[in-house]
């Protein structure tokens, strides 16, 4: 859902703020594209559906229902498949959420971002901390054990103490899944401009490192499993959908700016394609109407590129890359052969950042925090 009511000061996503949305038209196009791409990809069964954006909670439940119906019609959508909807606290009234549940949503991800009103204002959010709290409570009532909250840390002017307090508050409030993101100042956003212009201070690298460490520690102590760089779950409430990104499974992106990775049968056999749908909604709708889908680009990924993605994404998870998963892409050259011999990966293991054992290749606790410093070396080794 590519629309929002306003743009938050830190947001650089493909989202649009328009005075009026032609929901019927958009719905029809989403349905059409979903059908087309499912057919194209020849996918038999869909394991999860994720409604992202923009602000998907601004769509009406009937749109959600229509899309789910289309998916179920074109492929097998099992009853227990995870269907997540991203929601803004300002569009999560009980009736609304109930409507979504009736339409087929069984998991909710709420963009809380912060539990401090001043921070929320700096972020340009539409809600207060109290409103966010209420929204989470409502959601937990309707989606018990299947509600997730998003939180940001490392905001300008955020002190260590303020963050520690927020963590405590978040723990009291949350369900069984938390996504914890360090604020990234993206070029072109209002917040980045404020920091670069000197109006707001940039947080120090050391403070950010400390905030991350304390968050990990506190959450793990509270029973959460730190299963991905920014994602924590307890009682098994992991996000199936997101896991498929990090395991380099297949996924189909529907809607303006959506991304996909799936296999297509061609002359050379099966090839895995990286796809992006047209970004701008009006243009996208035009293409969907005339061609059935609005795919802006299709790139076949070479084996090397696939392995690069698998490596980059897999190492973000606590499970890492298993031997089987690696073997699925590279039956000839095993993980051991690739990274077990003396080389960059070996050196990183010696230094305590990586582990390569019977479970596969993964980061250590310390290594996960500095993964982006490890990856260039590993990619270089992979390329060779």
């Amino acid at each position: 859902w590519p629309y929002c009511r306003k743009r938050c000061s830190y947001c650089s996503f493909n989202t649009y703020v328009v005075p009026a949305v032609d929901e019927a038209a958009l719905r029809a196009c989403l349905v059409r594209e979903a059908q087309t791409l499912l057919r194209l990809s020849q996918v038999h069964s869909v394991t999860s559906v994720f409604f992202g954006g923009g602000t998907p909670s601004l769509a009406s439940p009937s749109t959600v229902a229509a899309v789910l119906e289309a998916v179920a019609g074109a492929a097998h959508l099992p009853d227990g498949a995870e269907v997540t909807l991203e929601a803004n606290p300002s569009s999560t009234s009980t009736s609304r959420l109930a409507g979504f549940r009736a339409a087929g949503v069984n998991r909710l991800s709420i963009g809380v971002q912060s539990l401090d009103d001043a921070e929320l204002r700096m972020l340009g959010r539409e809600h207060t901390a109290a409103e966010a709290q209420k929204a989470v409570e409502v959601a937990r009532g309707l989606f018990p054990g299947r509600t997730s909250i998003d939180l940001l840390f490392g905001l300008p002017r955020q002190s260590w103490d303020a963050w520690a307090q927020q963590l405590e508050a978040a723990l009291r409030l949350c369900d069984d899944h938390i996504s914890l993101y360090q604020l990234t100042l993206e070029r072109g956003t209002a917040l980045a401009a404020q920091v670069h212009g000197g109006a707001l201070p940039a947080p120090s690298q050391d403070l950010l490192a400390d905030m991350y460490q304390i968050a990990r520690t506190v959450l793990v102590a509270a029973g959460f499993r730190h299963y991905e760089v920014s994602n924590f779950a307890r009682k098994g409430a992991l996000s199936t959908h997101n896991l498929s990104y990090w395991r380099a499974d297949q996924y189909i992106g529907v809607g303006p700016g959506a991304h996909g990775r799936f296999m297509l049968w061609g002359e050379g056999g099966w090839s895995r394609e990286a796809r992006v749908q047209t970004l701008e909604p009006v243009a996208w709708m035009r293409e969907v109407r005339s061609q059935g889908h609005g795919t802006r680009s299709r790139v076949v990924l070479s084996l090397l590129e696939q392995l690069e993605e698998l490596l980059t994404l897999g190492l973000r998870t606590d499970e890492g890359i298993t031997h089987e998963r690696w073997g699925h892409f590279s039956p000839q050259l095993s993980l051991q052969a690739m990274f077990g011999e003396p080389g960059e990966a070996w050196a990183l293991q010696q230094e305590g950042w990586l582990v390569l054992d019977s479970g596969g290749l993964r980061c250590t606790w310390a290594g996960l925090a500095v993964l982006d410093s490890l990856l260039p070396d590993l990619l270089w080794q992979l390329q060779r």
Partner: protein
Amino acid sequence: QEILDMSTYPVESIRNFSIIAHVDHGKSTLADRLLEITGTISKTDRNKQVLDKLQVERERGITVKAQSASLFYNHEGINYLLNLIDTPGHVDFSYEVSRSLSACQGVILVVDANEGIQAQTVANFYLAFEAQLSIIPVINKIDLKNADPERVEKQIEKLFDIPTDECIRVSAKQGTNVEKVLQKVIEKIPPPQYNTADPLKALVFDSTFDHYRGVIANIALFGGEIAKGQKIVSAHTQKRYEVNEVGILTPNEQPTHKLYAGQVGYLIAGMKEVTEAQIGDTLFLYKQPVEPLPGFKSAKPMVFAGMYPIDQTEYNNLKSALERLTLNDSSVTVHRDSSLALGAGWRLGFLGLLHMEVFNQRLEQEYNMSVILTAPTVPYKAVLSSAKLIKEYGKDQITIINPAQFPDKLSVSEYLEPTVLGTIVTPHEYIGKIITLCQDRRAVQKDMLYIDENRVMLKYLFPLNEIVVDFYDALKSLSSGYASFDYEDAGYQSADLIKMDILLNGNPVEELATIIHKDKAHAAGKLLCERLKETIPRQLFEIAIQAAIGKKIIARETLKAYRKNVVAKCYGGDITRRMKLLKRQAEGKRLMRKIGNVEVPRDAFIRVLKRETGK
């Protein structure tokens, strides 16, 4: 094109003169006006710096290459041939100025009516005075509001011993009184005392390279005559040539049948490189050798800088650009050099900072090349005491350009550094600050003299390396631009030099080693460590950045390790972008220099090694 007959100008009707002045006092503008008045060029608004042909000259308002122009002027019934030699105004080119002057019998000394006598006014005056030339003082820019010609005339009288009534007050811009200057030239400057009956003796006072016609040498005849077809010899190279063409410059090339003693013009004789027609060289007829004109000097570089292409793939392009640019500038010395960090390049020697800047600018403008210029260095010397080294080098005194060549204290009985005698002219309110600045640069005061109630001239002996980096800028800045500076080579002096190494986690970085005076090492080391700390990217371990002399650490900075470096979000939409960035970083790793286990990107070296721009 008509070929002129120069025989109608006997020696008595010839005047050879030059215009000398401090930078920006208006000598090129005066030259423009003289060209107009004599009809050499037509009078239009577009005549600005006509003799400055290079783009860099026009942009910076300076004259880099000397040009001559022959003007024809009728005064009281007689047709005179006035040869104007436009000289480079800057101290770096004082040798060129002195050679141009040796072709003249007089000079016009231009002084700005507001600024008055400046450092180069003094320097150029002495050059003319020593050459025993007639000096016509001209006070320019009298049209400007702050002009005070009377004050300047008094300065001239006091400093140069020239009576005030000999000064001519002009406005070159507006043309006021300029004709009077021409008349004075005719009246006061003696004609050349040369004889066409003598054997040919021609001074080369400049040369340019033309792709179609070869080397065009600017010559002044001290005796004899020269014409197409004659065979001539260069006193310096002893090579023989046949003359293809002679002529005068008006200011464009105008061929003539012959050139006679006392006249000034150009010659084309099949020379292929400007090194074959060096400034100060003497040309004579084959089989009629003459005593070469005195004062010939091979160019001595004062400032060295490393020059590297931005990317090694540009190496060949830069190589040919350098070859072509040096075709026209025989005073740049070129040696191949290489740096572990920057790749293959050159170490170039320049006559001075302006020379280096102009060269760099010409490289950019005329050849479209962007280069990395490393900080300028000077040639140090060492007197060796180790028999082994003396044998190896074949002599007991060596010149050190590269820190890697620096011999150890134990093998050396004395280190030497080049010095210059600097002249500073400043309003008296800045004396205190300037003296402090000079002391800070290890300079020794040699003279201090009030040239009028307001202005002082200071003479200091400076180690050259103390002024090559940013002395001029510092001087200008603390005197609000009013102080002026000029310098000349003053030989070598003994110095307490050491080699300062830079270490990363204990491992030396060869290309960052510098030769420096002991007293300055600590400050320089600290600065270098700080700059490195800012430019080396953080890594997974702590990095100790140290400056050391031998085993002794004199400065240190610590670069802390990364504790968090992982992108927060990586979902469907982010993946492609992420991969691109990571792969670029992986590529970048290949270009990194690894010092021990510390990865240093090429960019860090560039930022630390390169010359500060604008200095």
